[in-house]
């Protein structure tokens, strides 16, 4: 089921009667989620990603704009009639029911022609449990399960009524680091097996990048960029997106373009044909540095971290906007740890320049 959001806007009225300050949580949001894909809504907290998810679910009504599932306009449809499955951030499993009762609960609400016999319900519940691999735990209560198991039960409960769209709110935020890795693979697998269009919300860019077919980057209620994770990473449209994606984060410098050349400090580091002379902000991915004895950019060496496969070189530079610059280079390159400075050449496709005022990308 394709999901289309059209000029979606959500304005929360001000809480404080005096200031009358409205909060625009989601601002004129339009995009299309292709059928059967896994989409990550990504952004820092307060960017409106959960609000967007709740509007798709129908638990919140948009102030304006439209939502379509396939060709059906569901904007005015109440949540129970939309055919969605929703997994809450803290799972919201009914604590007094067993796993089986929790999974059966949505099926027991079906009425009219959708009504199922007892055997059919049990069959559906069992297959949902099997899909998320919790069929051994059917008679446990939620508080007897680990966080990861609770998460699976919540997904099974959302899937059992065969929703048209599956929505997950911060599905991994309550899990520890190892379980998070495992569970995100699991979500990917379940989504592939069922083929249900799935939207999940996260503030963790690594999480979104690793399993999504497409990511949607948001900031303060405004859509920044949408695309395949790798494309967005390789081609950020503005400084915010460039900064938000990638671990370690992108290195940002103050720079200038003069006579078709990009300068950081006094060093001309790159050819930038066709860009007018101006002050710019430069973003360089950690993997965009190459150690070179006669490299253009000289940085003061402060630390070298060996991580086995890679070496992470921490340096400083007066033009850097961050305290330190972190570059990642292949472990085969030998770094002289006693040296006071290192010299780099830059890989052009890992360097982005942005307008100093608007922070929009300047292409070269």
């Amino acid at each position, binding site marked *: 089921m394709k999901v289309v959001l059209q000029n979606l806007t959500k304005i929360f009225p001000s809480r404080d009667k005096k200031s009358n300050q409205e909060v625009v949580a989601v601002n004129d949001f339009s995009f299309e989620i292709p059928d059967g894909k896994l989409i990550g809504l990504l952004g820092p907290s307060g960017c409106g990603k959960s609000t967007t998810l709740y509007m798709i*679910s*129908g*638990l919140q009504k948009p102030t304006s704009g439209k939502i379509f599932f396939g060709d059906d306009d569901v904007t005015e449809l109440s*949540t*129970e*009639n939309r055919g*969605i*499955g*929703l997994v*809450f951030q*803290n799972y*919201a499993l*009914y*604590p*007094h029911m067993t796993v089986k009762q929790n999974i059966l*609960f*949505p099926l*027991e*609400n*079906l009425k009219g022609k959708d009504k199922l016999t007892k055997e059919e319900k049990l069959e559906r519940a069992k297959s949902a449990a099997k899909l998320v691999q919790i069929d051994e735990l059917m008679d446990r209560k939620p508080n007897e399960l680990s966080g990861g198991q609770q998460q699976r039960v919540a997904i099974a*409960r959302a899937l059992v*009524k065969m929703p048209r769209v599956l929505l997950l709110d911060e599905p991994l935020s309550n899990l520890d680091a190892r379980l998070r890795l495992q569970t995100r693979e699991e979500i990917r697998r379940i989504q592939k097996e069922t083929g249900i269009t799935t939207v999940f919300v996260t503030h963790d860019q690594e999480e979104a990048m690793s399993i999504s077919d497409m990511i949607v980057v948001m900031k303060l209620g405004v859509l920044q960029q949408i695309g395949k994770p790798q494309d967005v990473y390789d081609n950020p449209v503005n400084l915010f997106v460039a900064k938000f994606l990638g671990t370690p984060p992108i290195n940002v410098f103050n720079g200038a373009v003069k006579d078709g050349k990009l300068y950081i400090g006094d060093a001309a580091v790159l050819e930038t044909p066709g860009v007018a002379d101006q002050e710019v902000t430069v973003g360089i991915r950690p993997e965009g540095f190459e150690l070179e004895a006669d490299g253009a950019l000289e940085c003061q060496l402060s630390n070298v971290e060996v991580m086995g496969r890679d070496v992470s070189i921490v340096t400083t530079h007066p033009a850097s906007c961050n305290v330190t610059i972190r570059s990642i280079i292949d472990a085969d390159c030998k770094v002289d740890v006693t040296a006071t400075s290192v010299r780099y050449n830059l890989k052009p496709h890992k360097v982005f320049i942005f307008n100093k005022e608007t922070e929009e990308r300047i292409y070269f």
Partner: protein
Amino acid sequence: MVDTRKQWKAWLYLSPAIVLLLIFTVWPIFNTIRLSLMEGYNSTMAANPYVDYEFPFGLGNFTRVLEYPNFLTCLKNTVLLCVITVPISTLLALLIAVGLHSIKFLQKPLQTIFFMPYVTNSIAIGMVFAAMFNMVIGGSTRPDSVGIVNNILEALGFDYINWTNAGSSYGANLAVMVVYIVWNALPFKILVLLGGLQGINKQYYEAARVDGTKKSRVLWRITVPLLSPMLAYVIITGFIGGFKEYSSIVGIFGDTMGPAGNPYRMDTMVGFIYRAIGKQEGTASAAALILFGIIFVVTMINLAVSKKKTHY
């Protein structure tokens, strides 16, 4: 653990409360047990400086309570009132609390109104109820004036009912008591349940909404189980309070505890104990211990049931 050298400080801080509890709670309990075992104990006789009475040790006070003809009436009234009013008031309080919790408009004023009976004197409430159910019969067969309840009955096309006056039926008396006790018990229960409702995570309701759960199903399958600790609490305290019913009956029927011409028809265990004080303290103590035993057993049953049904 507190450092042993500093424990005397803890005892010092606790001492005012401990002294008061010893004087007003622990000693009276022991004294009650002591008096109940002194056959025929009577404070007037015991206080007589000229005669030195010996009260024989034994269970005579208990047998006297059980043989007392009015005792069974007291027991029956007490149990009936408990068994009828606790379920009704709990159910009503649940529905009102859920209702109050789900509205936004007028929620605060309504909460205040529902809480009013709690801060009103029960004798005063009793007098108002007595007036509401009253019927003054003059010379003719028609009553000269009736309370608002009979006015409403008349407006609805029913006959007057003699609720509390001379010649009223036991059923009518009981009905008045049930209405009064339920109304009086509501505020505390509503308060506790409302507090419980506010502690339930809203996401359970959102999850239920996504699944298209009917309102009644949400109430019985989600709200009630999640509220069960509070429900158990109000039911248990309701039963304990119910077994101690006394002032409400005095409020409506006066200290004869029954309609004119039929005194002590609505008598209760506490009424029985209260009247024995000053005359037969031994008997009063025995009756108090019997009441304690009944409350203890009922509470144990309540706890056993709630342990199975309650989700914590």
